[in-house]
């Protein structure tokens, strides 16, 4: 399947969702998004890091240097309580959006 570019503004939500499953590093996040979307969604790798810093600064994420699975130093990101809350609210908005757009598109 061809790659689809992310809908603007959804990157944060996806990152939060991935980290909800456990802490990981930038590379890992990009990989997980790819895997979970069956390689449909392609994260622009460069833009991931500014997003991570921004989210960390907003208090949604915490970071810590650690050892990656290939024995390299890597920064691990973890969801904070505020991040979990943010995820919930974004999830809710997203669900409503999808539902609403779906209704509009399927109407005859």
């Amino acid at each position, binding site marked *: 399947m061809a790659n689809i570019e992310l809908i603007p503004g959804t990157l944060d939500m996806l990152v939060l969702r991935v980290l909800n499953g456990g802490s990981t*590093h*930038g*590379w890992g996040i990009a990989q997980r998004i790819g895997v979970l979307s069956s390689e449909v969604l392609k994260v*622009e*790798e*460069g*833009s991931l*890091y*500014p997003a991570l*810093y*921004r989210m960390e*600064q*907003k*208090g*949604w994420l915490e970071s810590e*240097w650690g050892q*990656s699975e*290939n024995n*390299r*130093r*890597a*920064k691990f990101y973890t969801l904070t309580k*505020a991040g979990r809350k943010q995820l919930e609210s974004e999830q809710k908005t997203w669900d409503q959006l999808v539902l609403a757009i779906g209704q509009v598109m399927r109407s005859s």
Partner: protein
Amino acid sequence: MNWLQQIPRSIRARFGRQKLDSDMAEEMRGHLERRAQANLAAGMSAEEARYAAQRSFGGVEQLKEIAREQRAGQGFDNVVRDVRFAFRQLSRSPGFTTTTILILALGIGGVTAMFSTLYAVMIRPLPFPHAERLVLGRATFGGVINPMVAGPDYFDYREQSRSFSDLGAFTSQISEVSVSKGANTERSTCLNVTSGLFQALGVKMSMGRRFAAGDDKAESPPTAIVSHAFWHRHFDGENDFAGRTITIDGVTRAVVGVMAPDFHFIDQPDIWLLSTPRELGPRRYNNWLVVGSLKDGVSLAEAQSEVDVIAAQLEKAYPDTNARKALLLTPLQSAFTEQYRTGFIMLCGGAAAVLLIACANAAGLLLARGAGRQAELAVRAAMGASHWQIMRLLLAEALLLAAAGGILGTVLALAMQNGLMRRFSVETLFLRDVGLAWPVLGFVVCLTVVTGVGFGVLPAWRAKSPDLADAMKSLGRGNSRHGSRLRGGLVAAQVAISFILLVVAGLLTRSLSSLHRTDPGFNPRNLLTVEVPLPPREYNGLQRTQFLESLLENIRSLPGVQSAAAISQLPLRNPGNDIALYDASAPPAAPSGGGNGYQRVVLPGYFEAMRIPVLAGRDVRSSDTRDSTRVVVISQVLAEQLFPGRDPLGRKVIIDGATQTPWEVVGVVGDTKMGDLREGPRSRGAFYRPHGQSSSATMRLAIRTAIEPHAVVTPLRALLQKLDSRVPLSGPRTMEEVMDNATLSEKAQTLCLTTFSLLALILAACLLALSGRHTP
């Protein structure tokens, strides 16, 4: 997320910026390496793999910049950078910077000092609980403020009125007393008060109690309250004061309380003596000021109308003394500040004008600087600086200038304030310190910031759509028609304001110099004045006269002394004590129909020493004693008032209605300003009685010298010590000092306003010179 969490992060972002940058770089490098490895595994060559990784990742430096901008503390970083840059820019033109800061500081300092003083004196509530309910009661005669009230009248008001929760009274002048401590005596100051005064003021005692209503009963023992400092001095600060007594002028009094150390009211005496109704003197002596505290819910008007009713009753009951007499109630604060009000408001106006000029001046400087920088700004804009960035830069410069001006101005204000208070001699109010009026300072600083920002940013506004070519063309010429018109307006406004200030200052100087030229009726040159209070127990009337006569005789033979005289109250230095008197042959129909004059007691030689002309008849003589005819010397105004068109010599007057002894007029002398230099020429006259016929315990000496008057003080002290070591000598001052002091307020006003107008003029000249340079 709450803001608290943000703080450590932004601090970290600020101070650990390099650490964060290197973290970021490491993290991205790690990612790139993994991508390259993945590419390698997918079968690319090593080089290809690295390029592909970089391609898909994007520019690391760009990403870092984006991340940095998003990071917390970025705004702060920018501010620091802007301020640092502005600082560099300003220090590059030190002339402009110093001038602007100084101008702003002068404006801010002047206004803040003036308004803070105004606020402290007139607006800030007096330091008493319920200060807003305190009123001052002053006697009026036929509507003219006296202001002293007769003691018995005060007691009648206190008994009959229902409007006050407390009504107290105090004598207006502090007096000196001798306090015995063992074998020694100590000179101390005291103020006579009635019970009710401290209650009305709500004063707290640091020990003991206030005077109670029962303390002034005839059968109660005499009482006193001492100041905190006096307690420490006299009783060595012991904490137990039950049963303590103090012997004042030979009378032993019980000490009922020690005043709180921060109490400050009119004067700072050592001792407050409780006066009983007996001691308040007859109804015709007006020696008291009344202070009352209005009851809750009683308005000033209600209290005044009640007091008016009582005054009318008193007038009916005592027509001799209370005809047309009333009590005027005024809020305490405004009563005590009314004499300063005009001067203060005028000076505040002057200071405000200087501030306006300073702002206009700073604006002019900033505009001129801005005009000179059009080219620089245009270049900055062309190099890619956004409009907002340029604005921010100029804003930072303007704010920096305003802040520096504000700080320096505050320092100036603090320095000026105490001087102002001293010069205006307003220390007799209830104030200890002025303190900065923060609202005033805030307002002034805001004003300067607005000025600075407004005029500092104007050039940037004009550079908004910079015509680079035009701007470059004007490079080095640095002007714009718009700017010069604005500056021209500023200069015109400034010159106008300075001119107005100068005119007012000129008028003030004129009235001051005319006050200085006022002839007091005597010659104040080389005239030393001192006070010699004779201990009342040790001397009776005759002994006093003898002592004073021999003292004067001895003083006259001191080297450098030309003449010496003694009087009960010196002109200008000791005002007050005016009494009714009338022609004995024609008692007035109405009780208040006669004349009124300042009563003085003199020893022979007073008029000669003071250079007061004897116009008819003679001076008093030492042969005028209790055994001879009662004689009096009257001043010219009084002679015309009592005996219009007739020769006063040999005529008899009745002094003070109560005693019917006639006094024969033996001389007429020139008039002098008795109470105040500002007295009109036709105001109250004076009459002089010989000491031999009506002795007075405290006498003042006037010594005419051929040398510097203060040089006589030491031999004088030695002389007094030799004659009677118990007699103190107090308050040596020359008459010229007394007169200087009397015009202190006027002098201070003139000085301030002249300074203001000079400043204004200098500032205007600065701007004029400056604008001339920039508009060829």
